[in-house]
Each structure stands twice: as C-alpha cells, then as structure tokens.
C-alpha cells in the first residue's frame, strides 16, 4: 500500500490553495475577458489597439516569464521609480495576490478571444430587437447579449479553465504553498520524490476529469433550449 509517511494532509492543504488560486484567477480572467472583448469589438481605435496589444503580447510570452516579471520585476520597478523621486520604500507583493493576478491576467487574454468570438456569433437582430422594445445599452447587454454569449463561450471558457488550473503549478516558483510546493516539501522530507510527484499528478488529473464532467453537464444545461 502507498505509504505517505503522514504527508497526505499536507498535499490536501496544497490542493485547497491550488483550487482557491485557480478559482480567483478564473474570475479575474473572465472579467478581463469581458473588458478585452468589449475593447476588441469597440469602434474607438485607442481601446481597440490596447485590447489587441494585450492579447498579442500575453499570448506571445511564456507564463513563467510573465509570472517572474510581475512577482520580482514589479516591486523593483516601483522601488527604483520611488528612489528616483526621492522616496525610500520597500514593496513586497503577497504571493497569493501576485499569483492570482498574474494567472488571471494571462488567461484573461485567452478568455478575451473566446468571448470576442461568442459576442460575434450572436445575430445582430438580437441587439436591434432589444433596442426596438426600448432597452438601453446596459440592459441590452445584461439581458440579451451576456446570457447568449455565455452559452457560446462555455466550451472555450472550459478549455481556458483547464489550462489555467494546470498553470497554477507554476506559482510554486514564487513560494506560494500550493499543491506543487507542498509536494516538493513532502518529497524532500521523505526522499520519495517519485511517489509524491506521481500522487500530485494524479490529483491534477482528478481536477481535470471532474472539470471535464462539469463542463459537459454545463453545456447540456446551457443548450437545453436549443438542441432538442
């Protein structure tokens, strides 16, 4: 039988943090995705350019580099700006917040593309009809566009989530005690790295499988009124 030398709970703690970071980052990613897709579909060229630069740059640079840049680069940048203005401050970023924001920021770019596609696949007549019965823009968005876009976006957002939750393993590099780092601690203490990394990989696989099933159910639910 698998002997974890009492380190099983450590991994369980790590798993909780992994899921917490993953969910928070997903919320950030969807919010940024909504903002980004609005920017991409906007007529204002400055907004448009900003959104396009965002997705182009983020999708062209490895997550690890972006993560290191935010976690180690941002504080030093702020400090050196402060020093040049005559202040002496020390900036420390909380690894949970840095990890969540960076992962959210990166996958926000992928969510932007998904949501842009979703908004574009809503027939134009829908918004026109909403306007014709007197809804103003915010209400149209809230009642007509968003619910329909979410249905189109569901498969894509599900994929973003599955890549995102795996990417959270990277934040172990910035010393956040999530699953990956707890695994490292356990494997160093027991000298059984294979056992623990294999177990960690099965935990991630479990998250993926559960997510796949949830996605399938969500899609059936969202398409209830359509496919019958």
């Amino acid at each position, binding site marked *: 039988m698998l002997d974890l030398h009492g380190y099983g709970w450590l991994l369980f703690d790590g798993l909780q943090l992994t899921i917490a970071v993953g969910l928070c980052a997903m919320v950030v990613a969807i919010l940024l995705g909504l903002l980004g897709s609005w920017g991409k579909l906007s007529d204002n060229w400055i907004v448009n350019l900003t959104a396009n630069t965002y997705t182009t740059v983020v999708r*062209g640079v490895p997550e690890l*580099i972006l993560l290191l840049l935010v976690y*180690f680069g941002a504080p030093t940048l702020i400090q050196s700006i402060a020093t040049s203005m005559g202040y002496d401050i020390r900036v420390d970023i909380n690894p949970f917040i840095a990890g969540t924001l960076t992962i959210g920021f990166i996958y926000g770019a992928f969510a932007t593309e998904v949501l842009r596609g979703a908004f574009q696949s809503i027939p134009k007549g829908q918004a026109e009809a909403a306007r014709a019965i007197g809804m103003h823009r915010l209400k149209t968005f809230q009642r007509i566009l968003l619910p329909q876009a979410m249905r189109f976006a569901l498969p894509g957002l599900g994929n973003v989530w599955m890549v995102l939750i795996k990417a959270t*393993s990277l934040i172990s*590099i910035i010393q956040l005690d999530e699953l990956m780092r707890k695994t*490292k601690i356990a494997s160093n203490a027991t000298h059984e790295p294979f056992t623990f990394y294999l177990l960690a990989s099965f935990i991630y*696989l479990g998250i993926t*499988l559960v997510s796949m099933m949830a996605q399938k159910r969500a899609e059936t639910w969202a398409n209830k009124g359509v496919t019958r």
Partner: protein
Amino acid sequence: MDFSIVWQYLPLLLQGAWVTLWITVVSLIIGLALAIPLALARLTKNRLISSPAYLFVLYFRGTPLLVQIFLIYYGSGQFRLELTDLGLWGFFRDPWFCGILALVLNTAAYSAEIFRGAITAVPRNDIEAGRACGMSGLLLFRRITMPKAFRIGLPAYGNEVIFLLQATSLVSTITILDLTGISRQLISKTFAVYEFYLTAAAMYLVMTYALVYLFRVWERRMNGHLQDRVVTAPR
C-alpha cells in the same frame, strides 16, 4: 531603468534563445514521430491497443507539464539503484535528457489528439475516390488519408508548436540555461530584474510571431488550392 546592462550581456541572452529554439525543434521532431503512431493507435478498434494510447494522452494532457518534468527529473532519483543496474542512470541524471523527454511526451500527447481529429475529419469522398482508383491499405493511407489529414491538422498543429516553444521555458526549473534560465542567472548576478525579464519577454515574442508567420506561409502553400481567390476580370 537601465538597459545598457542588457546590451552588455546580449550575446549570452542570444545563446539562451538559441538553446530555447534547439530544445523546441528537437522535442517537436521526436514528438511528431511518436504522435502519428499514437493517433493511429487511438483510432484502431482493438481495445488492447487503443486504451493504453487513450490513457497516455489523457495523462499527459490532464496534468501540468511542470509536474511531468519534476516527476521525471527528481522522481527518477528514487529508483537510482535500479536505474544504475539497467545502465540508464546516466540518462536520468542529465537535466537535458529529462527535460526533453518530458517535452517530447507532452507534445506527442497533444499532437496525437490533433492528428486523430484530423484523420477522422478526412472527407469520405476522398477515401472512396482513392478506393475507386484501386488503392487500399497502406497505399491509400500514405497517398490519400495522411496528406489530407496533415493539411486539415496544420493550423491546430501550428498552435501546438507555439505552445511548445513557450513551454520550453519550464526546463529552466531543472537547471537548463535556456532563455529563461540564462535570464534568471544573469538577474541573480546583476540584480537588474525587470530589464532582463522584459528583454527575454521581447525575445520570446519575436520567436513566437516568427513561428506564427512561418506557419501561416506554410499553410497557404499547403491549402492554397482550397482558399477563395479573388479573380479580377481583365479590363
């Protein structure tokens, strides 16, 4: 912000970028060689062949690459005696071998899924036409199914190549001095944190979009006959 320090170490960074490209290309070639048999194994009706292939693909797509790298590099240490007896310890002690092995298995799993989808998407008519000309079995596969599947799968495969290029940055965690690794090393020496990371990010950006461009050109060459062309009438 002082980028002159980056200028001083630019040759080292370029060397790191070269390592990144080298690892990408080597993993791609070996990964592709594994992906096609894997895709075919996934498609056979024999469960004894298709289920191991399915489990392989599920495992490598369902777990983070970082775990896979650590499992191979650090995990192999647990079997040091056994591996030494088999004469394999020399390989598993080497971060290059472990890093490339993890990348190869990972990209093989993702590419196998792409090619499996592409093979099932080959139009029935094409295969029937091949049959009508008297081809069957391997000949039909080599001349009709595979070339068509490759054209169908090319855009998705291009995306996978770009993901792999970025994923190679993870091998820096097992001491390989690729572009990310060399940047981290230079930062611990010079403390110029964001200067080096920003430069590395820019270099990755250039490599990524160069690859995107190459794949677009290649796609146009391969699928050009299928694209709508604007025919302008002579005046």
